[in-house]
């Protein structure tokens, strides 16, 4: 997604903005640019391609006030002309979001005599601000944005004064306070090097940065007070510490992140789960007749496991919906429905919009998210934080397993409150969960074996991932991981569905990864393996340590430690992540920044 940054202070703005933009690279982008106030003029430099491209093109621009942008093309191709900032007269703008009434504004501004040079929707913001500018940039921004329908986090620079003005609606924006300098950015990580004191902006709020400080306004132009929050993350935690890729570092971090997700939330003596941020009363939990999980991408796959858990343990009918579909599907919801929104970043535009939609039906809402203080967490009544720490690799790894853990905790929590699970069962399950970090380490100890299999099949054109019941979501996730970073075409299937179509695609060149850990469907899974073997496919099985049967039917076995049957999805996740990583690495792919993808999808 696009990233925006802004700086006003006493130091040279260019290196600060470039550094901040580099820290937003993970959001994904295809062009970049910046605008610097040089005395009484604005100097703009922009280019398609990487930030290093921009750096090499940069002339010597002196100035201590500026804005910058990384663009992820939505409207208009990724070209230099379409790159931000966009300029109208004495005003430059950078923008993240989508202007929905672009056409209408475009035609009106044309009539007003404005010339358009790019194909982007952002250019209307520049002309609009120019149209309303009468010496006060804050007023011009407010007036112009009142005309705009859509989403934006936008920053404005005007050659008349040393200020940066920024506003937001439905796209992320934070401001940060320094000594004699102030910053804005799309994401906290861009600013941590300079300041840890940040202010999260909310919809329809405007900030005006100067050297001395910052002032906040609402859309009536009235000043408002905002709270400064202190960030505890280390910027270094966002660096690679010796690993070749963030993704591999984050796969290895799962020993710690799973431990952190569990920390303080289980009592193994009493078999209870403790979730402080869940405020639903016992009666409300007992009265739930339906759960709807809304999520996108990897979070959706986690949600599918959630469905299995909520239904089998807590006895609550559960549906899982893709956020962007849910909104337009005229959902049937009531006051006894719980809507669970799952989003790593807490800024996923579709999921936030779907949550807002759900609230209008009077549902209970709950978010499972990794980042504190985000838009999503303000929209909901209940939160379970996954506490996985910052994740930089575009392919979600540790945040996925932490989402799974959060769903296990929540379903046991509901099951106990609804008296659907006896204390003995919950104790056994919780004890097994407590052992997960050690088991994950055990899988990581065998990473070379997984690497060997990944390399062996990395030349494949197509890959199939098969699983049944609670392994099915992991088959989908494994296929998603593989295709998003290695570009190998991969599909996840419920193993029983094979005969209904995909079996036609299986040939001796097709590797099939079969999730065959112990479960009630194990025998059926073995039959499915025989089916694909009969079509001479190459089969890799993920199986339990003590399974001596499986190697008779498959070409390779990757083993996971023995755990409670319900928990194998967590362990298998680590295996499919390592498989995807090593396949992509063998093919020389840009693992942390796969083509065309962005970390947090803040447009709909």
């Amino acid at each position, binding site marked *: 997604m696009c990233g925006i940054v802004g700086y006003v202070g006493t130091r040279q703005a260019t290196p600060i903005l470039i550094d901040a933009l580099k820290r937003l690279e993970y959001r994904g982008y295809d062009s970049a640019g910046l605008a610097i106030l040089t005395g009484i003029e604005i100097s703009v430099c922009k280019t398609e391609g990487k930030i290093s491209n921009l750096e090499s093109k940069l002339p010597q621009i002196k100035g201590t006030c500026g804005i910058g942008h990384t663009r992820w093309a939505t409207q208009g191709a990724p070209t230099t002309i379409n790159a931000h900032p966009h300029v109208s007269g004495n005003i430059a703008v950078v923008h993240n979001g989508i202007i929905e009434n672009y056409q209408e504004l475009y035609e009106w501004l044309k009539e007003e005599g404005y010339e358009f040079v790019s194909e982007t929707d952002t250019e209307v913001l520049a002309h609009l601000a120019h149209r309303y500018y009468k010496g006060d940039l804050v007023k011009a921004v407010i007036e112009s944005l009142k005309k705009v329908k859509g989403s934006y986090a936008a920053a404005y620079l005007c050659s008349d004064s040393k200020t940066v003005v920024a506003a937001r609606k439905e796209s992320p924006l934070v401001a940060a306070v320094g000594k004699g300098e102030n910053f804005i950015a799309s994401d906290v990580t861009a600013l941590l090097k300079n300041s840890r004191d940040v202010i999260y902006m909310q919809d329809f709020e405007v900030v005006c940065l100067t050297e001395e400080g910052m002032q906040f306004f609402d859309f009536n132009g009235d000043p408002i007070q905002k709270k400064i929050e202190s960030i505890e993350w*280390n910027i*270094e*935690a966002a*660096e690679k*510490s*010796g*690993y070749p890729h963030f993704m591999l*570092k984050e796969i*290895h*971090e799962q*020993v*710690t992140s799973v*431990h952190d997700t*569990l*920390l*303080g939330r289980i009592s*193994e*003596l009493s078999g209870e789960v403790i979730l402080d941020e869940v405020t639903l009363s016992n009666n409300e939990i007992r009265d739930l007749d339906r759960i709807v999980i809304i999520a996108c991408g990897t979070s959706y796959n986690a949600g599918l496991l959630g469905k299995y858990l909520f239904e089998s343990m807590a006895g609550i009918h559960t549906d899982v919906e893709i956020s962007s579909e849910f909104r337009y599907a005229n959902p049937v919801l009531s006051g006894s429905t719980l809507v669970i929104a799952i989003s790593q970043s807490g800024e996923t535009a579709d999921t936030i919009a779907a949550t807002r939609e759900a609230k209008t039906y009077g549902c209970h809402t709950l978010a499972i998210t990794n980042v504190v203080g985000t838009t999503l967490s303000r929209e909901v009544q209940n939160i379970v934080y996954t506490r996985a720490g910052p994740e930089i690799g575009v392919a979600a790894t540790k945040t996925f397993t932490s989402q799974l853990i959060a769903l296990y905790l929540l379903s046991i929590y509901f099951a106990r409150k609804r008296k659907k699970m006896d204390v003995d069962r919950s104790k056994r399950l919780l*004890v097994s969960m*407590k*052992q997960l*970090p*050690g*088991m994950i*380490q*055990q899988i*990581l*100890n065998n*990473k070379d074996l997984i690497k060997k299999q990944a390399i062996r099949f990395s030349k494949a054109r197509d890959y199939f991932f098969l699983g049944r019941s609670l392994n099915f979501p992991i088959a989908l996730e494994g296929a998603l991981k593989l295709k998003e970073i290695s570009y190998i075409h991969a599909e996840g299937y419920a193993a029983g569905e094979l005969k209904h179509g995909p079996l036609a695609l299986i040939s001796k060149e097709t590797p099939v990864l079969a999730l065959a850990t112990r479960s009630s469907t194990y025998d059926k899974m073995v039959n499915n393996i025989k089916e694909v073997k009969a079509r001479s496919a190459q089969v890799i099985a993920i199986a339990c*340590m*003590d399974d001596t049967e499986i190697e008779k039917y498959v070409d390779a076995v990757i083993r996971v*430690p*023995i755990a409670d049957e319900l928990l194998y999805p967590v362990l298998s996740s680590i295996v499919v992540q390592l498989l995807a990583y090593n396949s992509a690495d063998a093919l020389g792919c840009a693992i942390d920044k796969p083509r065309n993808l962005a970390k947090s999808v803040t447009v709909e």
Partner: protein
Amino acid sequence: MKALILAAGEGLRCRPLTLARSKVMLPVANKPILEYIIRALAQNDIKEIILVVGYKKERIMDYFRDGIDFGVNISYVNQEAQLGTAHAINLAEPMVNEKFIVLNGDNLIDEGTIAELIKGASGDVTLLTVMREQTTGYGVVLLEKGKISKIVEKPRDKISHLVNTGIYMFSPAIFGEIDNTPISETGEYAITDTIQRIIEQGVSVTNITSRGTWIDAIHSWDLLKANSVVLGKIEEMKKRGVIEKGAVIIGDVAIGYNSAIRSGSYIVGPVVIGKNCNIGPNTTILPSTAIGDNCSISSFTEIENSIIMNDVRIGAGSYISNSIIGSNNSIGPHFIAEVGKDLKIEMKGILHSADELGTVIGDNNQIGPCVLVRAGKMIAMGCAVDSGVRVTKDIPKDSRVL
């Protein structure tokens, strides 16, 4: 000034504990040995640290990351093949352009040890030595007129009490000498060979004899001694978590966040207990014991002078003394680790001696109820031991014992 820490080797003599991590990551008082070295350097204001890693490097990188939590800046250099200390040092050449310190990652030191070296170093090469009564297994140095005349690796006879600690201060001139060092009979490039060549060229090589801490845990069971020394020195023991009414805590005991000490438990320090543990009810823990994170110790179990790593469950009514239990073990009730004195322990055909030892257990084992391990016998890694087994010989990796 930069410091270069050699942390690429496995530490074979500490098996089975090193099957899953290298020796530098073995815990003493719940912190890896390497952390003590890094903290000692940081306290002497040496903040630029180069770690030469190889065997199980991910475990080191996962723990230390970029060093920020330890107040230092860490860069990693990968030594692909184990070609000796000189080769490892040479890998850092592009990153060093002034005097630098070299240390082994698997020796316990404190800030005083480093301070002595910095204060006394002179010339292109300075060695840090310590006086030891017993020098078996160590390299020693011979002095002539206050200068080092010879370095002898593991001599059979007692020719000197000055043990080479493997801690050096070098000037960048050392890299040129390393390039001229021939490969040894054992197929490695040893830094001691390089230094010997420098001495033979008539260049003066000095030593400083340290009175600071320097503990080399040669065998896994030597960790118990190191653990007890370090626990005895910790000044501030913080108690977080929950201590239930009726639990008795005597002496210095540290308890980590979210851990619970249940009623009727009796703990005598020095003892450290990590995060997220459940101890008891009615469990006895005696000096000098370190228990890692995420452990559960059930009722009526007694643990004494032992190291229990992370993610370990120990069933009710067990007895563990003078023993080391690796990570992620599940041990059933009524487990007994017999303790013996003056043991001879065979590893790869060579006999080693241990003064007093219970057992050493590697990672990821499933041990059933009522298992007894004879003194000095070890269980490797990934083993399943059925109920009622008497372990009378070492159990190799991935075994199933019925």
